C-alpha cells in the first residue's frame, strides 16, 4: 500500500489540472489567520442555522456539526457529462429491475440474477408483488456512491435506492461557500444546485396516485425530531413548502390517507417517507411500529396514495445484488454500462471465498447488509488481530460478506492543521426519477479528514465539501 500513487484531482505530475486552475491563487492568497477566521465563521453559520446531525447515547452534546472543509471539489463540464449519463443510466436500470422482480421476474428467468438473492432477500417485500406504483417508479431518489481512481476512471461503490440522505449538505455547503467566498463564484462559472428542491417537488408530484384528480398534496414522513437526519427532513419540507409529518399525524379513513390539521382532516396524496420499510404500516410490516400509519399499505395498493420510495426498493441496493447492476443495464436498457462496478468477490461462492481468505490483508471486506462504514474491514489498514477476527466471522457465515480490492481513492486538497494536504474523497450525486429522470450538477463530496484514511462516513470522522461543476 505504501508508495502507491493516488490520483490527485488538483495536481497531475506537478501541474494544476484545468478545473482547479482558479483555486491555486485563491489557496495561495489565503493567510492562515483569514483561513481560521473563515472556518470559524462557517462553523458559526452551521450551528446557528441548526445544521447538525444527532448522535445519541455517546454522552456530550447530542447535536454534532459535520466537519466542513472549505476547499471545493471541482469537476469540469465534460467530466460531469459522463458521470451524469452514467448515473441516470444506472437509476433507470435499477428501477427497471425493481419493476421486474415484483412482476414476472424476467431477469431471474433469464438466469442472469440468482433466484435466492432476489426472492429470499431480506429487503424483498412480498406485499409489493404484482403491484405497479405510479409510472412504474419504485426508487424516486437514487443516490449513487462513486469513487475515482484516475482522470477517467470512476467506480460505483454502492447504490442507495431507499432514502439516501445527505442532500441537505450538498445544498447548505453551497450556500455557506457563497457567503464565505462570493469572489470565487464571480470568477468561476459554477453550475447552481439550488433547483434540487424544485426538481424533487416536481418528481414527487409527477407520481401522484391514480385516484388523485387535483394538485397533489405532498408530505415528508419523518421518524421524528430525535432522528439523526431530522434536520434534513425539515430542511427539505421547508424548501418544497410541504408539511413534515410524523406517523401520529396521519390516519387512514375510507380509501384515503389524511393528516390531522387545525381545520380538520386534510387528504394526503404523495408521501416521501424517510422511515424504513419495516415501520411504514404496523398492519402490514412490524406490528410494534409506532412510527408508521396503520392501513397505509392498503390505501397505497388501491391507488389512494403514493409512497416514495416504494416499500421493497431496497432489494436493488443490496450489496449482493450490486454485482449484477451492469447486467441489468444490458438486460433492460440494451446499453453498455457507462460507470463500472468495483470488482467484487462474493464470499458465498466457494471459489471467491477461497480467494478472499487467501488475500484478506489486501482487500476491503463488507457486510452485505451493513451500512455507515460499520462492520467493515480495510485490510491494508487493519491490525493482524482485526484481520484474524474477520476471518473467523467470514468463515462462520460467508454469505454475509463481500470483498473488493482496496481502491486507490482519488484525493482532493483539503485544509488541515498544517495547511493544505491531499485527503481521500468520494461522491454521492442524487438522481431524481419520476416523469423525467434528472440530476442536478453537483452532489455530496465526503472527505476522510484523517491522513491516509479511506473511510469517509460521518460516523467515522468524515467531513464534507462543496462540489462544483464548472459550466462551459
Amino acid at each position, binding site marked *: 500500500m505504501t508508495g502507491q500513487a493516488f490520483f490527485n484531482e488538483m495536481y497531475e505530475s506537478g501541474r494544476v489540472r484545468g478545473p482547479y486552475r482558479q483555486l491555486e491563487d485563491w489557496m495561495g492568497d489565503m493567510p492562515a489567520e483569514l483561513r481560521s477566521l473563515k472556518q470559524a465563521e462557517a462553523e458559526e453559520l452551521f*450551528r*446557528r*442555522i*441548526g445544521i447538525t446531525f444527532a448522535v445519541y447515547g455517546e454522552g456530550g452534546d447530542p447535536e454534532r456539526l459535520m466537519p466542513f472543509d472549505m476547499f471545493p471539489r471541482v469537476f469540469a463540464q465534460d467530466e460531469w457529462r459522463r458521470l451524469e449519463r452514467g448515473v441516470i443510466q444506472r437509476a433507470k436500470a435499477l428501477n427497471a429491475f425493481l419493476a421486474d422482480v415484483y412482476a414476472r421476474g424476467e431477469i431471474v428467468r433469464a438466469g442472469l440474477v440468482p433466484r435466492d438473492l432476489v426472492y429470499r432477500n431480506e429487503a424483498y417485500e412480498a406485499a409489493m408483488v404484482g403491484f405497479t406504483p405510479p409510472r412504474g417508479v419504485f426508487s424516486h431518489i437514487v443516490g449513487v456512491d462513486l469513487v475515482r481512481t484516475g482522470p477517467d476512471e470512476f467506480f460505483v461503490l454502492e447504490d442507495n435506492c431507499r432514502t439516501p440522505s445527505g442532500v441537505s449538505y450538498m445544498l447548505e455547503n453551497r450556500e455557506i461557500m457563497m457567503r464565505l467566498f462570493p469572489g470565487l463564484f464571480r470568477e468561476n462559472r459554477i453550475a447552481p444546485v439550488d433547483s434540487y428542491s424544485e426538481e424533487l417537488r416536481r418528481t414527487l408530484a409527477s407520481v401522484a396516485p391514480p385516484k388523485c384528480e387535483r394538485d397533489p398534496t405532498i408530505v415528508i414522513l419523518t421518524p421524528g*425530531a430525535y432522528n439523526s437526519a431530522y*434536520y434534513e427532513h*425539515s*430542511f427539505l*419540507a*421547508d424548501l418544497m413548502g410541504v*408539511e*413534515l*409529518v*410524523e406517523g*401520529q*399525524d396521519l390516519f387512514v379513513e375510507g380509501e384515503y390517507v389524511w*393528516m*390531522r*390539521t*387545525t*381545520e*380538520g*382532516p386534510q387528504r394526503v396524496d404523495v408521501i416521501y417517507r424517510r422511515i424504513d420499510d419495516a415501520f411504514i404500516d404496523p398492519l402490514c410490516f412490524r406490528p410494534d411500529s409506532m412510527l408508521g400509519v396503520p392501513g397505509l399499505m392498503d390505501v397505497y395498493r388501491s391507488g389512494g396514495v403514493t409512497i416514495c420510495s416504494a416499500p421493497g426498493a431496497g432489494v436493488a441496493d443490496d450489496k449482493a445484488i450490486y454485482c449484477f447492476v451492469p447486467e441489468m443495464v444490458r438486460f433492460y436498457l440494451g446499453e453498455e454500462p457507462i460507470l463500472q462496478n468495483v470488482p467484487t468477490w462474493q464470499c458465498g461462492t466457494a471459489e471467491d471465498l477461497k480467494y478472499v481468505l487467501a488475500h484478506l490483508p489486501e482487500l476491503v471486506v463488507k457486510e452485505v447488509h451493513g451500512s455507515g462504514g460499520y462492520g467493515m474491514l480495510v485490510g491494508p489498514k487493519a491490525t493482524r488481530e482485526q484481520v484474524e477476527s474477520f476471518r473467523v466471522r467470514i468463515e462462520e457465515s460467508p454469505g454475509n460478506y463481500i470483498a473488493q480490492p482496496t481502491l486507490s481513492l482519488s484525493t482532493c486538497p483539503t485544509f488541515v492543521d498544517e495547511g493544505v494536504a491531499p485527503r481521500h474523497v468520494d461522491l454521492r450525486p442524487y438522481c431524481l426519477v419520476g416523469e423525467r429522470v434528472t440530476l442536478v450538477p453537483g452532489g455530496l463530496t465526503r472527505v476522510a479528514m484523517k491522513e491516509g484514511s479511506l473511510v469517509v462516513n460521518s460516523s467515522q470522522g468524515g467531513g464534507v465539501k462543496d462540489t462544483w461543476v464548472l459550466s462551459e
Partner: protein
Amino acid sequence: MLSRTATNLFWLARYMERAETAARLMAVGERMSLIPSTCGSGYRSEWVPLLQANGSFAMFEAKYRDPVQRNVESFMFFDRDNPGSVASCVSAARENARIVRTALTSQVWDALNTAYQELMALERTERSGLPLTRLTDWTLRNCALVRGAIDATQLRNDGHDFMNIGYYLERADNTARLVDVKYYVLLPRVDFVGSGLDNYQWTTLLRALSAHRAFHWAYGGEVTAAKIAHFLILNRQSPRSLLTSVQGACDHLDRLARRYGRTTRAQTQARAMLAGLAELSIDEVFDDGLHEFLTRFIGDISDLGGAVFDTYLSGDLR
C-alpha cells in the same frame, strides 16, 4: 396547519412566558427579602410564599428542604428536575422550536437557539459569578428578544395566532399567580393589611412586573392596594393585566374562527370569560376575596387551555 405543529408553536410560547414569570418571581422574592420582618411568624423564610404561589413548594421542599436564596435560585433557574425552572422552560421552548423549525422565521429560531446556547454557557459558569439579578436580567432580555422577533418577522397566519394564544393564556395564569403571592405573604398577619409594609409589598410586585413607572403614569397619586390590584387585574392599558391577557387570547381565537370559517367551544369560553372580567369592579374582587377570585380565574384559564387543545391541537376536529 398540522395540529402537531400548532401544538409545538403554542407550547413554545407558553414556555417562554413561563420562563419569564419564573425570573420575575425570583425578582419579587429578592426584593421582599431586603425588607425586614416581611415574613410573619407563620413562615420560615420570605421565599416560601413565593414558591407556594408558584405551586412548586412541595417539590422544592422534598429536594432542597432549606428555603434559602441559593437553593431557590438553583431550583427556579437551573434545576432541570423542576419543569417550571428557567432552564427547563428555555430548553423546552427551544426543543419545540427545533421540531417546527420550518414554521419559524430564521430570526425567531436564532433568538431561541442563541438563548439556549447561552443558557448552556451559564450552566458551566461558576455560581459565585452569577448574582441573582444577572440571572433575572438575562431571562427577561432573552424572552423579550424572542417575543420581539415573533412580532417583527412572523407571518400573521394561524401559526402566529397559536403562538399568541399560548403567550396570553400563560400570561393570564402567571399574572394571577404573581398577584396571589400577596395573599400568601400576608396570610399570617391580617393586621398588616393597609399598613406601610402592605403597600411596600404591592409596590414590589409592580417592580417585578416592570410596571412601576407605568403604574404611576396610569394612576398618579398615592399607591394603594386597590389601585394596584386594579392595574394588574382589570386595567386594559396594563400589558400583563388579566383583562388584557384574556382579551389577547380572545382576539386571536376570533382571528382563527374567521380564518377557518367556524366558531368552536374555545371562542365561546373565551368570550364568556372576557365579558365577566369587563363587568367586574375591583371592589367586588376584594369583597369576594382576592385569593378566591384568583383561584377561580386560574381554574377558568386552565379550562380554556383545555378547550383550545380539544378543538385545535388534538387533531380530532371533524
